[in-house]
């Protein structure tokens, strides 16, 4: 029996896909999500779970290192494809599947992987980051909680310890610090992003964890200034600002879809996959140009289930409180400022906004970018609303537990493409 062939066919029958979205790749990410859903190719959250690494979006040299780490962690048989734009996604997926199926392709990859591993071995021992990914300057201790918190000089306790011993895996030890509850615990530096599942593309937050409490959060943005690729969610506003005719209905459609996308991420992070799928379907239908009446019934059901869910409200209340006054002071506009409260208030605001926008899909009046807010708020003085959302993040994350931190990020859902678009415009004007 050809066991290798059997494994290859099994992997190719239903490849598990690790979707890595690059900054500016929103349209391609949406297309990939839609195709994976229709083909029943499950989406993996870490390389260990995946067969196929699908990179979407315009090439971004600064993230090559992180992508290579993901690829190195993918167990064979495996394949890696890159779809630069939405149109290429379907073909790339087929290509990846063919790669997975062919033994020749797998052997070739095994050869190059072995060579790469030898290269890596010659350098310092690097860690294999999970889909938790890593920033550009990964420090080798980030993945490793076992390397405890030893600073020498503990003579108490009388433990026999060899100070000069080899650490497991050649990893450095964690340092200690006071934690939220007055205990001295190990600090662990863990990067969140840039390729975390259900995470804003291009965002990296380096958090210092004690237990699972975030002690410090530092934002890094991976997107280079003015990278290629448009800001998908704010396209109607940018086009209107540039003088193109855009109807208010088109903008409302894009805004509702953007909120549904954010909601889908929030629901996925909150661990409600069934409703996350419902949100993604609605989003895809809206972007596909479905008339409001066609989705109204399903949207209603979805909004009822999620908006009136006592369990979800119970689990999200009190997390990431951002009052309207605080929000306005930081320059936040849009749903996050209007909701003025915790995670629960913010997702309810999204639902309310989606319902309102659904009635406006057919509006033919021209879009006034200054009066009609974008998915994440107004652009003021060429400052995109996501910049303000990013500004409030570190403060909200400090002191939150890891699960709450993920919920907070998902409930604000900054769009880094907006920042890049703003920089490009500034560059064009300046």
């Amino acid at each position, binding site marked *: 029996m050809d066991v290798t062939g059997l494994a290859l066919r099994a992997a190719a029958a239903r490849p598990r896909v690790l979707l890595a979205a690059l900054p500016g790749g929103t349209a391609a990410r949406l297309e990939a999500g839609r195709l994976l859903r229709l083909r029943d190719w499950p989406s993996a959250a870490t390389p260990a779970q995946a067969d196929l690494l699908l990179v979407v979006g315009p090439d971004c040299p600064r993230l090559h290192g992180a992508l290579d780490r993901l690829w190195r962690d993918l167990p064979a048989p495996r394949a890696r494809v890159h779809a630069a734009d939405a149109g290429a996604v379907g073909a790339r997926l087929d290509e990846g599947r063919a790669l997975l199926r062919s033994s020749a392709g797998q052997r070739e990859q095994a050869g190059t992987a072995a060579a790469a591993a030898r290269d890596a071995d010659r350098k310092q021992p690097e860690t294999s980051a999970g889909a938790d990914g890593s920033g550009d300057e990964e420090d080798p201790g980030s993945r490793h*909680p*076992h*390397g*405890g*918190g*030893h600073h020498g000089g*503990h003579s*108490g*306790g*009388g*433990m*026999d*310890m*060899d100070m000069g*011993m*080899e*650490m*497991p895996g050649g990893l450095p*030890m964690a340092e200690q610090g006071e934690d*939220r*509850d*007055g*205990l001295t*615990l190990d600090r662990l530096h863990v990067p969140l992003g840039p390729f975390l599942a259900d995470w804003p593309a291009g965002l990296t937050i380096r958090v210092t964890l004690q*237990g699972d*409490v975030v002690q410090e959060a530092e934002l890094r943005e991976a997107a280079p200034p003015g990278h290629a690729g448009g800001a998908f969610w704010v396209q109607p506003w940018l086009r209107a600002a540039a003088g193109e005719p855009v109807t208010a209905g088109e903008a409302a459609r894009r805004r509702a879809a953007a909120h549904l996308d954010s909601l889908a991420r929030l629901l996925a992070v909150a661990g409600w996959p069934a409703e996350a799928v419902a949100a993604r379907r609605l989003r895809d239908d809206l972007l596909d140009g479905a008339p409001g009446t066609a989705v109204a019934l399903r949207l209603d059901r979805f909004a009822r289930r999620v908006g009136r869910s006592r369990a979800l409200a*119970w689990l999200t*209340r*009190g*997390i990431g409180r951002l009052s309207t006054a605080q929000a306005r002071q930081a320059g936040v506009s849009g749903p996050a400022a209007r909701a003025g409260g915790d995670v629960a208030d913010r997702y309810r605001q999204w639902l309310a906004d989606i319902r309102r926008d659904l009635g406006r899909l057919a509006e033919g009046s021209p879009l006034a970018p200054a009066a009609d807010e974008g998915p994440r708020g107004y652009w003021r003085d060429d400052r995109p609303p996501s910049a303000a959302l990013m500004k409030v993040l570190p403060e909200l994350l400090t*002191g*939150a*537990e890891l699960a*709450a931190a993920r919920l907070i990020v998902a409930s604000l859902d900054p769009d880094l493409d907006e920042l890049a678009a703003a920089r490009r415009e500034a560059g064009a004007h300046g």
Partner: protein
Amino acid sequence: MSTTDLVLLGVLGVLAPACGVLVFTLDSMARVTFALLASLCCVGGVVTVLGLPYLGVVIVLMMVMEMLIMAVFMIAYMMNPAGLMPMSMLHNKGGSLVVSAVVFAALVAGIFAVPWPGRTGVRPKDTTFQAGTALMGDQMLTMVTLGFVLLATMVGATVLATHRGRYDRFGDDLDQRPAKDPAGAGVGR
């Protein structure tokens, strides 16, 4: 006692002290914890084979939970690198070796030296009931008292150890609701 029981008793009887020895020879806190747990599970098996199934299974049940909680605290609050770090678990090697050898010898001597009484009645079919009446019948008052003492100790220790008092949580006039906690809890008090 059937042959199966004797074989089981032999195997578990050897495994239990073997895992016990591993506790002192392994050099990772996690492995040590689970060697101790394996040893205690073997003890639970021995007790079961000896005809006390309830106590035997409860030993396994309680020890798994207890050792896991212990693992959390040992690893979280160890002031030196626990877990995978190579380290020795031994304190005062010479003294402890002497003490344990003497205790072991005394216990083994006790097995042979004590004039064990012969069985008078018939062996009950289900010893669970006997264990229950022995604890809850004659010794009810002891058990109830012990239970309350244990509970009071746990609550008292937690209250004394906790960093923030009720004035920190409920404000100076104790009227702040919900309490000021670093993270909200389940029922919103």
